[in-house]
């Protein structure tokens, strides 16, 4: 193990390390802690320029209550959910199929198609912007959640295919051969043999895509406009315009907007990290 395990080092260094850890963490998360502190302060603290002192009163319930009851925030949150969840389902379903096709079968153009997916996934968004916006408008889906979902599904399929295909490649190929000898139809091999083995990959991708899509801002701005379809990342800017200079409310709003992926991460940590490392660093 590197660096030298702490248990094998001198007593002084052990104590220093134990003290250093929480200190480093607080420094690292300082900007975030500041926002959390802001979000439970009452408005009066800001008018009296008491920015960094202790809150004069705990106003957490009041501030967060305002965010949920007096603004469009719940609507944006709902939109985000209605965009994110179908995208996750769509992208995982499509890429389970493409990954299966590219991972199991040997045919001409296999590697070419695979690299097409990988390359497309690295492309800068801006080169897609104008054509995708036009396409969405031609389909009559501009400023709808469906329009956003369709694009996200298509784009995320690139990354998901990379992941799924590599995962399927690592499965024991004998299983498929054995099933073929038994005369099992190919689609049944997919459904009954491969899919059950892909559960960890599906879980990892689902968490990861959830976070990516929830946090998307660029496409939300390009393809949607109003509160009826915008997700929370785009909504937070109009929220902030509504409460300009009301830092306690803006902070509370930001925390609410950031929370769902954070919760997802803490609940599904193992899968999340497996997904991030692309399964390559095991």
């Amino acid at each position: 193990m590197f660096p030298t395990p702490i248990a094998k080092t001198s007593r002084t260094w052990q104590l220093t390390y134990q003290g250093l850890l929480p200190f480093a963490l607080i420094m690292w998360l300082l900007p975030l802690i500041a926002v959390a502190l802001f979000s439970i302060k009452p408005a009066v603290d800001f008018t009296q320029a008491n920015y960094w002192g202790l809150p004069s009163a705990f106003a957490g319930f009041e501030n967060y209550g305002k965010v949920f009851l007096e603004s469009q925030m719940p609507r944006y949150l709902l939109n985000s959910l209605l965009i994110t969840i179908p995208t996750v389902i769509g992208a995982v379903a499509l890429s389970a199929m493409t990954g299966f096709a590219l991972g199991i079968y040997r045919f001409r153009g296999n590697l070419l198609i695979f690299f097409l997916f990988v390359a497309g996934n690295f492309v800068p968004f801006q080169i897609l912007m104008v054509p995708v916006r036009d396409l969405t408008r031609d389909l009559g889906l501009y400023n709808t959640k469906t329009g956003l979902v369709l694009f996200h599904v298509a784009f995320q399929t690139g990354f998901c295919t990379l992941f799924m295909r590599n995962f399927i490649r690592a499965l024991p190929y004998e299983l498929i051969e054995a099933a073929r000898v038994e005369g099992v139809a190919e689609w049944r091999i997919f459904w009954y043999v491969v899919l059950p083995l892909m559960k960890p990959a599906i879980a990892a991708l689902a968490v990861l895509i959830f976070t990516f899509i929830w946090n998307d801002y660029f496409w939300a701005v390009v393809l949607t406009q109003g509160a009826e379809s915008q997700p929370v990342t785009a909504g937070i800017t109009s929220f902030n315009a509504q409460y300009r200079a009301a830092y306690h409310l803006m902070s509370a709003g930001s925390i609410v907007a950031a929370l769902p992926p954070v919760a997802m991460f803490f609940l599904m940590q193992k899968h999340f990290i497996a997904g991030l490392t692309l399964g390559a660093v095991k």
Partner: protein
Amino acid sequence: MTVSPAVPTDRYVPPRGWYKRNEIRVTPWLFLAPGILFFLFYVIFPVFQSFNLSLYKWDGLGEAEYVGLRNYQELATDRAFETSLWNNLKWLLLYLLAIPAGLFIALFLNQTVTGIRLYKSLFFFPFVISQVVVGLVFTWFYDPTFGLLNTILGWFGAGPIAVLGDPTLATYGIIAAGLWPQTAYCMILYLTGLNAVDPEQVEAARLDGAKGWRMLWYVIIPQLKPATFIAFVVTIIGALRSFDLISIMTNGGPFGSTRVLSFYMFEKALSEYGFRMGYGAAIAVVLFLIMLLFIAYFLWSMWREERGR
């Protein structure tokens, strides 16, 4: 098609349809079809459409007028474009700092003490938050009147500095904000990588008297190569895609000093500066060509690995 025999035989042969006979050849294409179609229409075709569009003058509604390479000629003398290009270069270079920084934190956290798992997760925290929120958080952090940064500087009698209001500092301020989640990402890549480092090699090197920096450089880092590769890929892509932070923190200002290509393109094509779709597409093409260098390199590395199997 099976041809029915001219003379009826009494032995019944079950018909094997075309699909059954070609199952292994056809199935992959059936499975690929929906994914490929989606990907073609939303990703591959638009790339070519943008190339084509960059040769036109178009406001997004009326008739598009063919102008040849005039959009690119205009780019050559466009000062804002030049600024954006330089800023993109700054982003690329400085963003790479996330890799050593991530490695440093990973080394710091690669211990087994109580609660270390929670520490690791909390250090990773910034990556999970949307860039929009990161942008807001850092905008307040830098705020000259109440921002934490200037409050701390004030303790030492320095400041206040309006980081985001100063054309020479603003871009660096935004990059610093971007480095925060990116470092967290690299850290987690290295933490997983460190888990896979061969303990026997480390012990053997220790017996040979290697320690500290020499151990890190000659024994550990070579074994972390896969993690470094992924960290490099995601950092480069992250740097060239930077848009959210700029849009939230400065909206390209002050005086357009924080624009990068991706932001400038958006501004030209979709914001109040006029709907110049063709010119925007030309900017996007330049950005794409820069990215293409890296994409080619990534694919080449992957291809070598595929052949190595």
